[in-house]
């Protein structure tokens, strides 16, 4: 999200899901939409199939949504900045950009123009493998649209250049004047139900709720008064991807992990496992005995979403109600009650009667949520920012001006991914999800039917690579990277393109993240899950 925050001042989906049907051209990059956000995919498919809108898909795999696309561009892994710069080049060279928007709403155009000058379609073809003609046509299509929307997901962000990739998409949207209008925008599709809310609520090392910086003395003073404490720490804390190394080298002694399973979701799992082992004290609070919980000193059983009241904020910044439907099993409790009980024992009472009382407090200290009460969202959720109870909420961001005033173009050069193929590891590996499982499988693997359809890990490979490696459908193979190896069955699929294989990361028994690289984006610390080099051979 750092990329969007740098360009616009706010790191969230600029437009709404419903808005997508108003776009003339939809550009989907690095999002396997039909499998990861199926209901958003239906909106896109309706727009294309029933309303005649144009779809451009850019993805290294021939994913389902590309069947609906007017054009599918297939870049090599880790070359996103290059193809986006190529589109920017064509649009500027052919004078298709929105001069008025660039003039009145943005800064940094000249530097951008210079930076993309050498990204001719031919130059870009050499880097990305996208035919120059196809890239030119896609650029013209997108720039020619009155309303163009960009949807992206982890295929853009999970790279060492993830922040650059996002800034590049922001460049493209601003260049075409697609911000602040219905049917436009730059729209990151969030993968987990309340990722947006966890960020909004200050579940980040550098901000309080509402993105108020911990380094800002005024913000700290406000929170100190609200929370009735003498001081609050001013130094930003560790990112999740820094925590495990800190545990490994002994500077971090204790971790309290709530509802996360880093021992399947983290990059370079072999290393992550050792790191957690170095902790003096590990508390895990979850609904199941996850791989991570199994390493804990104390495990605390929590209530799941169906057993509690509260709110989630979805990918379009819409704050929606969660309602208790059933009682939790055994002694399991709501997460907030557990945390408050620990706080009380540590000498800081946090007495709340219910989730509504917490909401009322957080609204007082979180300006973007100030106007969102349970009463108002009883029937339909409200998009933040919503500064007061009379405010209708904000479906479209940056209407009149950007959160930071003028939008900022970032002149960015393409740099190759951290790891490349070579003689020893000749295939690229990219990772992701499948429709029938979710994240580390903690929840979906408890449903028999989902396991029946998607029971085990597989490696998706093109017919060409299968032949070249002497393997066939159903063969058990060993896939090895420089960090580790796993076994999985071969699935020959037209989704795969020669030179690149794909693994779903859900399965702990064959955890794709034993292979992936822990090289990080230097700005936001996101790992490069989407690119690593592997070799493959038939298991004995």
């Amino acid at each position, binding site marked *: *999200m750092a990329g969007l925050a740098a360009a616009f001042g706010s790191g969230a989906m600029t437009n709404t*899901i419903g808005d997508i049907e108003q776009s003339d051209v939809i550009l989907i990059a690095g999002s396997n939409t039909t499998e990861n956000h*199926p*209901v*958003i995919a*239906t909106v896109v498919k*309706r727009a294309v199939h029933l309303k005649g809108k144009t779809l451009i898909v850019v993805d290294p795999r021939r994913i389902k949504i590309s069947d609906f696309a007017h054009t599918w561009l297939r870049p090599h892994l880790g070359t996103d900045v290059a193809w986006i710069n190529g589109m920017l080049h064509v649009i500027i060279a052919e004078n298709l950009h929105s001069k008025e928007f660039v003039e009145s709403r943005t800064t940094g155009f000249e530097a951008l123009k210079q930076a993309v000058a050498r990204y001719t379609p031919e130059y870009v073809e050499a880097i990305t493998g996208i035919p120059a003609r196809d890239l030119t046509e896609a650029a013209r299509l997108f720039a020619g649209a009155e309303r163009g929307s960009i949807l992206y997901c982890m295929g853009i962000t999970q790279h060492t250049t993830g922040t650059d990739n996002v800034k590049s998409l922001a460049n493209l949207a601003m260049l075409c004047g697609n911000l602040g209008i219905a049917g436009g925008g730059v729209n990151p599709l*969030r993968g*987990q*139900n309340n*990722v947006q*809310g966890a960020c*909004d*609520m200050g*579940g980040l*090392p550098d901000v309080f709720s509402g993105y108020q910086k911990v380094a800002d003395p005024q913000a700290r003073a406000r*929170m100190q008064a609200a*929370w009735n404490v003498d001081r609050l*720490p001013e130094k930003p*804390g560790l990112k*999740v991807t820094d*925590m495990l190394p800190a545990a490994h080298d002994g500077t971090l*002694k*204790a*971790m*309290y992990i*709530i*509802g*996360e399973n*880093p021992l399947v979701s983290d990059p370079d799992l072999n290393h992550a496992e050792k790191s957690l082992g170095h902790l003096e*004290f590990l508390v895990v609070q979850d*609904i199941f005995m996850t791989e991570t*919980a199994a390493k*804990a000193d*104390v495990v*605390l059983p*929590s209530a799941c*979403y*169906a057993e509690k009241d*509260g*709110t*989630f904020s*979805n990918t379009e910044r819409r704050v*929606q*109600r969660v309602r208790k439907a059933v009682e939790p*099993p055994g002694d399991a409790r709501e*997460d907030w009650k557990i945390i*408050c009980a*620990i*706080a009380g024992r540590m000498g800081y009472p*946090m007495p709340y009667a219910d*989730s509504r009382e917490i909401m009322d407090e*957080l609204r007082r200290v979180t300006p973007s*949520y100030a106007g969102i009460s349970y009463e108002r969202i009883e029937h339909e959720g409200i998009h933040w920012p919503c500064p007061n109870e009379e405010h209708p909420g904000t479906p479209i961001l940056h209407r009149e001006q950007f959160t930071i005033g003028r939008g900022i173009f970032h002149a960015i050069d393409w740099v190759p991914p951290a790891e490349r193929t070579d003689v020893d590891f000749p295939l690229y590996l990219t990772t992701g999800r499948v429709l029938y499982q979710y994240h580390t499988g*903690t929840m979906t693997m*408890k449903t*028999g039917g*989902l396991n029946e*359809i998607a029971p085990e890990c597989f490696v998706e490979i093109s017919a060409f690579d299968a032949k070249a490696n002497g393997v066939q459908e159903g063969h058990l193979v060993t896939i090895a990277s420089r960090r580790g190896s796993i076994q999985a069955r071969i699935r020959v699929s037209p989704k795969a393109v020669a030179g690149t294989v794909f693994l779903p990361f859900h399965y702990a028994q064959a955890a794709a993240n034993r292979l992936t690289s822990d090289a990080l984006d230097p700005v936001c610390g996101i*790992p490069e899950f989407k690119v690593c080099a592997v070799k493959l051979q038939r298991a004995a």
Partner: protein
Amino acid sequence: MTAEANPNTITINGSEFTFQPGETILEVARHNAIDIPTLCHLKAADPTGACRVCLVEVQGARSLVASCAMPAAPRMVVHTESPKVVTARRLVIQLLLASGNHNCLVQGSDGRSFEEYAARLQHAGGGIEPCPVWGDCRLQELAWRYGLTGGRFSPTPVRYPLEDVNPFIVRDFARCILCGRCVQACNEVQVNQAIHFGYRGAKSKIIAAGDRPYRDSDCVFCGECVQACPVGALVEKDARGKVWPRDVQKTVRTTCTYCGVGCQTQLHIKDNGVVKITGVQEVAPNYGSLCVKGRFGFDFIGSSERLKTPLIREKDRFREATWEEALDRVARRLGEIKAADGPDSIAVLTSARITNEENYIAQKFTRAVLQTNNIDHCARL
């Protein structure tokens, strides 16, 4: 506003209403709380006028018209429950009741009691299974509303066997009335393009991929077709024959727990367990649609593997503990480590799965109590 002032005025059952050009008679009626019954009509899709249940009388028209497909026109005069309409509608419903196996009205019963129905079925013998949607069926509702007991026409023969070779959806062609809602749901709402009308005339059938099981087609088990089915032809496999509609004690609306779309769902509850999930119609962001995980992936909630009690490690294994003991232990150890190595020696991973309120509490605890900013979650992972 009078009819003279606004030409876009229509009269329904003696009352005048204005309309927007392009609105159908059905839409105008619904906006004004006039209930024209429908069956095949699916709000998000183009009207097909296939089932004829929504017939109305338009003065001056030669025949009855399907209100779902007929645009309102200036000075139109419509009757929605005139004797002519009711006679025709009763006939339509009786024909639908004869379309396959609709034994809810077995032996002429119009009883509203499931027990009586089940007893009659048993009495009839032959091992006939009770209808899995008894009490939650649009056709049954219409039969009751128009005082029909079935049996006017002999039922059409059952041509196609039930298909259930997948984990989620049972397709009972014997109960299908060929209304086409599922086809529209699949093609016009979800655009999965997995099911279509197949064969012709009396052999008509809703088919997937050249008449193959769902599993061998493009079906992705979103269940939009199940939610659209007005009868018992498409039913959730888990619940079918085990959880009857009348067993559901309450439904609770909430937000789905999987991806970031935030679909609005209705949890159907029986004996403190979720037995079924449906999408909430007519509200953003999903307007009733769900995916396979959101609709069918709820077994984890009542799983026997759920953690039920705090656990404390004793060397290589865990032992059960009381909340008192576990909370004391956590508070004491965190306090000791904070005192010995400083606040920044502790980190909290909060979660993209828990509520806003809980994330707020987690950051407040981390910052105000532990006195560190070492808090993050797995958004990047």
